[in-house]
């Protein structure tokens, strides 16, 4: 393998560094990296790994670009809204560096396809946004012996490390099990500083490039914590757990499992008798029926958008303020998209409120189907 004249020019600032040089640049050209997700973390990762000259990059994503992505997913532009993310990402990467071979995996990574997809790459970078896929990526990487460059973000905080590298620890060594659904908010629920995935994604990109070049000290056995508010990096020790079910001395997980079930996601499926859709809510309001419309979002969300006539009790305060609600009333609970409100419904039902329903799809559905003047966020 050699570099073309165009590539020699393009990578000249790499080529003149002793740590990369021609040998390193050829290693990058020969390397293949799988990026799982082209969102907040995936965007800077994809752009910089393409620019750096990684020879083959696989992208896994099946989502489409929407307006709420644009404050952080810099690989997608305003004119890309509505397009598949994978198309938009591939266009940006080709513009940055047409030498890179791009593989398109427009699918959800599942227990059925993960091993086959991952086996074709030297290393994996995890830019996903949910626990089931993170455990799936981890287990598949351990089973295949592929390094897994990990990063995750929340509001102003990020974590990064390299899992499953040469006998090092894996994600399950760090956290044996995921939290129950709903307990740890996602970025869609809790928000994220737009710049944060740039910082964490580029730490992942740096580690990926170092692993390919075999230079420096990889972020193995160390969990890097980043706090943007304090502007502070910290490092915690991370060890392989000899009792880890997947990478321990006597593993009990020797093939991929059902990760939705493992993460308890299926249990969260709403049951029909506690759901009400926005059309029925609108009818009730129009008929001036007597009921309480309970909004369990946070105060700062109400400032963005609200459904007229609602009563606000943030989910975190509900236990303390339950007595403000009347047991004999019909109560319809809503939040942004239906997750927090279903927890509130479950709690209220356990507390003896029998006539409680969850507004399916939350205020986002209200904006879609009833009143588009209510802003979506």
């Amino acid at each position, binding site marked *: 393998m050699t570099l073309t004249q165009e590539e020699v020019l393009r990578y000249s600032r790499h080529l003149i560094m002793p740590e990369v040089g021609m040998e390193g640049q050829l290693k990058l050209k020969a390397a293949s990296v799988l990026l799982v997700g082209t969102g*907040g973390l995936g965007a800077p990762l994809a752009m910089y790994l393409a620019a750096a000259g990684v020879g083959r990059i696989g992208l896994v994503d099946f989502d489409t670009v929407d307006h709420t992505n644009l404050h952080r997913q810099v690989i997608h532009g305003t004119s890309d809204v509505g397009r598949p993310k994978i198309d938009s990402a591939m266009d940006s990467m080709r513009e940055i560096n047409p030498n890179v071979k791009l593989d398109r995996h427009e699918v959800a990574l599942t227990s059925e396809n993960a091993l086959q997809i991952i086996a074709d790459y030297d290393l994996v970078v995890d830019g996903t946004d949910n626990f089931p896929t993170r455990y799936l990526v981890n287990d598949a990487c351990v089973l295949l012996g592929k390094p897994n460059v990990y990063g995750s*973000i929340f509001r102003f*905080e990020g974590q990064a490390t390299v899992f499953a590298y040469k006998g090092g620890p894996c994600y399950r060594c760090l956290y044996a099990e995921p939290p129950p659904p709903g307990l740890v908010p996602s970025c869609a629920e809790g928000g994220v500083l737009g710049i944060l995935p740039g910082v964490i994604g580029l730490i992942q990109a740096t580690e990926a490039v170092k692993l390919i070049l075999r230079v420096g000290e990889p972020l193995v056995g160390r969990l890097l914590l980043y706090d943007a508010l304090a502007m502070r990096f910290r490092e915690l020790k991370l060890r392989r757990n000899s009792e880890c079910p997947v990478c321990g001395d006597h593993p009990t997980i020797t093939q991929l499992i059902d990760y939705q079930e493992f993460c308890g996601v299926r249990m969260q499926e709403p049951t029909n008798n506690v759901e009400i859709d926005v059309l029925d809510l609108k009818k009730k309001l129009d008929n001036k029926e007597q009921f309480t419309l309970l909004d369990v979002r946070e105060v700062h969300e109400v400032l963005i958008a609200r459904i007229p006539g609602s009563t606000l009790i943030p989910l975190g305060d509900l236990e303390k303020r339950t007595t403000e609600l009347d047991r004999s009333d019909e109560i319809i609970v809503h939040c942004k998209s239906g997750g927090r409100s279903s927890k509130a419904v479950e709690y209220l039902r356990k507390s003896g409120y029998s006539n409680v329903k969850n507004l399916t799809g939350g205020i986002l559905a209200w904006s879609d189907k009833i009143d588009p003047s209510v802003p979506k966020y």
Partner: protein
Amino acid sequence: MAKVLIPTPLRQYVEKKDSVEAEGTTVGEVLLSLTGAHPDLRKQIYTEEGKLRSFVNVYLNDEDIRYLEKDKTAVSAADVLSIVPSIAGGA
């Protein structure tokens, strides 16, 4: 007495503070006095049986207490405890 660093997702349970001082000479005692003063935090990091939840790690300085003496790990005034829960965001 030790300083306990509180991560973003749990700050809502400790009056939005990023660190809290708590009494105790072992990790277990410090966490007990911390969660005694902030009962909402207790539900987040302990199971109903009183076990630390499996998606919450506690570090004494930079060491995971699972590899020290867990709850019985001695804590001095100069030590910093960190509670580090699992986060999954990335999109």
